[in-house]
C-alpha cells in the first residue's frame, strides 16, 4: 500500500492524531504494510503568519506519502495536496495514529473531495 502521512502530536504510533493539518506538531509517515514509520517535525509552522497549510503540503509531498490522514484541512492545503496528487482523509481526530491507519486499511476513512475547514480569510 502507499505510504500514509498522519498529523500527530508526538512521534509515536500511539500518539493522538493532531486535528490540525497545517499547524500539526508533526507527521508520521507510515508504511501501512509493515507499520514502519518516520517522523517529520512541523514545528516550523508555528513561526509562519500564513501559509502553514501549504508548507505542510510541501513537507508531506516531499516525504513520498500519497495519502494524508488528519482532522481538518483548510482550502489552500487542500488545493496544494490535491495538486500533488495526494489523497486526503479527514475527520480522524480523537484517534491514535495506529487506530487511524487501521481504520484507513479497513476502508473506513472516506476520502475527501473538498476541504472541511474555511480559510482564515474567507
Amino acid at each position, binding site marked *: 500500500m502507499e505510504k500514509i502521512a498522519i498529523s500527530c502530536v508526538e512521534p509515536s504510533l500511539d500518539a493522538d492524531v493532531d486535528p490540525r493539518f497545517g499547524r500539526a506538531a508533526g507527521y508520521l509517515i507510515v508504511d501501512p504494510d509493515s507499520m514502519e514509520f518516520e517522523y517529520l517535525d512541523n514545528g516550523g509552522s508555528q513561526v*509562519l*503568519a*500564513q*501559509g*502553514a497549510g*501549504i*508548507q505542510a*503540503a*510541501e513537507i508531506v*509531498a516531499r516525504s513520498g506519502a500519497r495519502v494524508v490522514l488528519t482532522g481538518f484541512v483548510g482550502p*489552500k492545503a487542500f*488545493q*496544494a*495536496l490535491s*495538486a*500533488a*496528487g495526494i489523497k486526503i482523509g479527514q475527520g480522524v481526530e480523537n484517534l491514535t495514529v495506529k487506530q487511524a491507519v487501521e481504520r484507513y486499511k479497513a476502508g473506513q476513512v472516506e476520502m475527501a473531495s473538498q476541504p472541511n475547514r474555511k480559510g482564515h*480569510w474567507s
Partner: protein
Amino acid sequence: MILAVASGKGGTGKTTVSASLLSVWGKPVVGVDLDVEEPNLHLFVRPEIAGREKAFMEIPVADETKCTYCRQCSDLCQFKAISVLGEVLLTFPEMCHGCGGCISICPEGALSAGSRELGEISWGRAGKAGFLMGRLRVGEAMSPPLMRAVKEKLRGMTSHGAMDVIIDAPPGVSCPAINAVMDSDVILLVTEPTPFGLFDLKLARQAFTPLNKPMGVVVNRAGVGTSDVYDYCKGSGLAVIAEIPYDRSIAEAYARGSIIAETSSGFRDMFIEMAHKVRSMNGGSHGREEV
C-alpha cells in the same frame, strides 16, 4: 507637518478628532483617511470627490511550460504565495505581499508580473482642506499595500507648497496602525478613561515609542470611568493635551454626521487649542523620518 491621529482601542474618537482638527486647522491642510478597511472620515467632512483610481499590487503569473520545478521561488517566498509540489507550480495570489522576489529569482523567466487589485483611492476637497482616502477591496486581506499607494498619492498632493497633513489612522497596533503613523511628525493617541481605553493606550504607547516621535493623549468621553488613564499618562510621561467631555450633544452631533468643532463656539475653541498644542509638539529634536 504630518499629524497622525491614532489609538489602540477602536471607537475612541479618532475620526471625531481628525474631522474637527481639519475644520479649525487654519492653514493649508489635507485630511487623509488611512483606515482603509473601514474609512469613515468622509462621512463627516463630506468632501467633493474630484477623482478616483484603483490601486494594484504586483503578483507573479506563472508560465508553467518554462518551469523546471527548481523551487527557488518557493524557497524564497516567506508567505507561501508560490509553491512547487512535485511537478506542479501553484500560486496563491491573495497571499502575495508583492515583493517581486520570485519574479527576480526565477532562472527560467517563467514568472512575470501580473496584478492584484487592492482597492480604490479617491481625493478631492472638503471646504478649505484637501481630502484623500483609500478604500480596501472587499476580500483583500492586507491593508498596508493600499496604504502605501495612498501615501504615494499624498506625496503628489503635498509636493507643491507647504501643506500640513492630518491622518485618520486605523485602530490597533499591528501593521496597518504602524504604517499609518510611521511617516508622521506628531502622534495623537485618542483614548477614553475606561479599562479598555487604558489597556489599549498602553499597547499603543509601547508600539509607537520606538518610532521616536512626540506623542500626546486626547481623552475622549472625559467624565466616565476612572482616573487610571490620567495616572498612567502622568507616570509614563505622556501629556494629556485635551479632554473631550462625555456630553450627549457630542453623541447627537456625531450621529448626525456633524463635525463637533462646528457645533458650538465652545467646542470650536477646544479644538483650536488642541491644534495649537499639536503644532507646539512638532519640531524639537524629533525629525521627520521618510520610510
